[in-house]
Each structure stands twice: as structure tokens, then as C-alpha cells.
């Protein structure tokens, strides 16, 4: 992983971000800059606000304070049209896949594509669908319904659905949660392969250390609403911060 050359060209800049729900303070001053072509793994315990953070990046949630700049645009200052134009360039793979369960796998793929490009021909659409399903290795599931797939397959279909819009940035919310080690490795490889083929910048949210190590050029550790440490995998865990050490210890014991 470390041979990869990452340009010093920031595509995501998060500054001093705050977010709370009622009396619950979730994010308390998050800072993070991500460069083009970089994979950043965000680690953190359940409920620390990892999902909230990436939802803010695509404007699904509004921050209380702080600024978010994605692809040179300040999220807070965009109107609906501009925000949609930006959202097309950002792929969001949901924690629970969020497949449209009234549609077949094929329709799941076609839907975002057709809704955003009204004048694509049928063959162009079919070709795009084939390509992304090929990329995730699930071409044979094309005509099935999401309910008939396993968890790992749903994850991969969810990733394929976001790839179809050719995003510049990929956000993965716990891509390996609840999967067996072999499927985890497959998904990790898929994430790296997506990065290479489509030259995306990615955020991978996870609490699985092997996933973070395999996919992340850098690792960021979210503790108490802030990034306690950002750096390479080894840098982050070579620390005397007890909470980070515990995170490491328990992850590999289980």
C-alpha cells in the first residue's frame, strides 16, 4: 500500500466540526484533510459518531459548527442543485447496504443512473450495469431481489450501485461489519481494487483493525468526538494512549 504516490491535493477538508443531538454531543471538534487518491480508514467504537461524520459530508445531516469542504465546495453554502451535482461525485455505501428492496438487483443499479442521465440509451445502461456488477463479481445475481442475497453480497451490490455513477470519492460505512474473515478479505480487496481502477479517494469507516490495515493509507482514530490520532496504522497504535491500546488489544483477542 505504501508505495502509492498520493498528491498533495486535498479533496476533503473538515475543520473544527461539531454535532450534537439534543443533549448528546457526538462530534466535538473534528479536523481532517484527505488528499486525492488516498484511502483513509476511520476507526472508533460503536456510537462515537463515525456514521454521523460521513453523513455530514454528503449533506444528509447538518453540522452545528465547523466547515466541510468537499471537492472545493463548501457543503453548507450549496443550493439544492449544486448539492446534487456534488452528491453524484460522491459514492456512499451504507452500513446496512440500503438496497431498494422493491427492485431487482438490475433495477437497483439502473435507478440512480437513469434518474441522473435521462438520455442514456438502453445499451449504454445495460453496459454500465454489467461493468459494475462484474467489478464486484456478482454478475449472476442480476435478476434476483435484494432479499435473496447474503449480507456480504448485499454489501458488494451496495458498493456496485454507488460505483455506477463513477464517483470521485467513495465513503464506505462499515463495509466488513458482521462478515466472516474470508468475505472481509474479499471486500478489502474490492475496496483497494476500486481505488486503483477508478482512482477514487475513499473514507472507510470500520471497527475492524485488519480492514483498516489492509485498506487504509492512513488511519484516523475517533475518540470522544475528536480524532485522537491520525497517521499510518503502525504510528497510530504505537502509543501510550490507553484507550487506543485497548481498542487494539480487544480487536485481536476476539
Amino acid at each position: 500500500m505504501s508505495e502509492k504516490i498520493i498528491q498533495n491535493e486535498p479533496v476533503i477538508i473538515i475543520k473544527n466540526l461539531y454535532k450534537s443531538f439534543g443533549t448528546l454531543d457526538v462530534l466535538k471538534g473534528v479536523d481532517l484533510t484527505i488528499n486525492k487518491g488516498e484511502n483513509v480508514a476511520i476507526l472508533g467504537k460503536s456510537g462515537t459518531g463515525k456514521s454521523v461524520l460521513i453523513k455530514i459530508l454528503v449533506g444528509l445531516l447538518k453540522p452545528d459548527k465547523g466547515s466541510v469542504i468537499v471537492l472545493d465546495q463548501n457543503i453548507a453554502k450549496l443550493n439544492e442543485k449544486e448539492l446534487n451535482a456534488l452528491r453524484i461525485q460522491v459514492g456512499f455505501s451504507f452500513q446496512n447496504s440500503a438496497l431498494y428492496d422493491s427492485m431487482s438487483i438490475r433495477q437497483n443499479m439502473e435507478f440512480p443512473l437513469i434518474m441522473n442521465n435521462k438520455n442514456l440509451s438502453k445499451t449504454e445502461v445495460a453496459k454500465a450495469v454489467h461493468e459494475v456488477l462484474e467489478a464486484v463479481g456478482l454478475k449472476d445475481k442480476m435478476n434476483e431481489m435484494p432479499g435473496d442475497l447474503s449480507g456480504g453480497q448485499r454489501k458488494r451490490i451496495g458498493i456496485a450501485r454507488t460505483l455506477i455513477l463513477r464517483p470521485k470519492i467513495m465513503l464506505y460505512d462499515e463495509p466488513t461489519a458482521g462478515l466472516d474473515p474470508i468475505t472481509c478479505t474479499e471486500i478489502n480487496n474490492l475496496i483497494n481494487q476500486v481505488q486503483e481502477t477508478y482512482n477514487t479517494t475513499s473514507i472507510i469507516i470500520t471497527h475492524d483493525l485488519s480492514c483498516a490495515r489492509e485498506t487504509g493509507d492512513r488511519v484516523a482514530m475517533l475518540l470522544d468526538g475528536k480524532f485522537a490520532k491520525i497517521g499510518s496504522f503502525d504510528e497510530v497504535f504505537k502509543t501510550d494512549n490507553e484507550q487506543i491500546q485497548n481498542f487494539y488489544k480487544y480487536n485481536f483477542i476476539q
Partner: protein
Amino acid sequence: MLSKALDTYFIGIENSYQFVKQYFKQAFVPPFHFQEIIHQCYEIGIKSLSLISLTGFIIGLVFTKQSRPPLEDFGATSWLPSLMGIAIVKALGPLVTALICAGKVGSGIGAELGSMRVTEQIDAMEVSAINPFKYLVATRVTAAVITIPILSFYCIVVGLLGSYVNIHKEEATSFIAFFKSSFSTISFLDLYTSITKSIFYGFTIGMIGCYKGFNASQGTRGVGKAANQAVVTAMFLIFIEEVIIVQVANWIRYY
């Protein structure tokens, strides 16, 4: 800020007002999802057609049967067709249709959108630059506004048919004579009121189902709650609308 319950009550009213406003802002500007609207019309029709057929027919039949003895006492059974015409066209047809649709269609929409909300499918649409309000809510409400008046009309026809079956059995009245006399006391204003009522009912059913579903929370429990509340609230509002519209129609009649 009297109390927390009162607060949430008024916030609820404000939110539903915004939701309705949003519909009028989005339903009439392109892009229109015509295919989806037609699909939803079909869904609404299919879901409730059999129940409306059965209920409409039986109500027509039974209502006629039971109204006969008191009229017979006065030797006024020849009034039966026009009496049934008034009852079915002006009141029963639209109301029965609306209540059936509130149960079948409203709860269906509430559950469907509710589960899409809690499984983040609505968020997924939003992040792929698809307007979920327009695609999910506007199409369903429009479909309900189109379909429920048609179903009401259908219910009226089936109800009168039920009534005719009973009258034909007892009096051997011809089909044409029956319809002539049942519509003799129905004015255009009556028909117009019935259609207007149905449009309001359709709007209410679609809107409440979508509002409850779209704002569902708390996981799968929220889905059941959304479906349930959609039915209860829609039925409640339908009765209130019934009273108001009949009242307004009466004012129009006398001025």
C-alpha cells in the same frame, strides 16, 4: 411553551403543514415521474378493487332490503330507487371507498415508506441525487388523488347494482327504469360534491400515509407505528372532511 406535550403537538402541526406545502411546490414542476404515477395508480386500484366491489355491492343490496319494510308501510316502495340513489351517490359510495382505501392504501403507503426510511433507502436516494420527496411522496399523493375518485365512482355503480338486484327481485323493475328513477333526485351539484369529496379523501389518504412513513423512526417498530397511525389519522380526518364538505355544499345549494 406551556408543556412539552403541547409543544410537540404544535411542532407536529407545523411539520405536516410544511409537508403539504412541499407537495404543492414539487408536484407541479418537472421532472414528472409519469411512469411511477401510473404504477402507483395501478397499485392503489389493485389493492382495493376486490374489497370495494364486495363491500359496495353488499351495502347496496342490504341497504335496499332493510329500507323496504318501513317504506312498504306507506306503500311507498316506488321511492326506493331514488332513495338508494341519494344514499349511495351522495354519502355511502365516496365514504365507503375512502374508508377502505384508508385501511388498505394508507397503511400500505405508511408501511412501505416507513421501512424505506428506517432501512436508509430514502437516504440512499438522496445521496444519489434523487429527490425522494418527489419520487416517493409526490407520485403517491397524485396517484391517490386520481385513483380514489375513480374508485368512488366505481363503488357507486356497484352499490346501485346491488340495490338493483334486490329491487328487480321484488318488483321486477327494468334496469333502465331503475337507473332513471334513482338519478331523478340527484343534481349536478350532488355529483360534483361527491367527486370533490373523493378528491379530498384521496389527498388525505395519500398525504397522511406518506407523512407518517416518511417521518418514521425507531427501527422496525416505527414501521408498524407509521402504518397504524396512517389509518387512524386518515379515517379521523375523512370524517371531519365529510361533515365540512356536506355543510359547504348545503350553503352553496341555498345561495
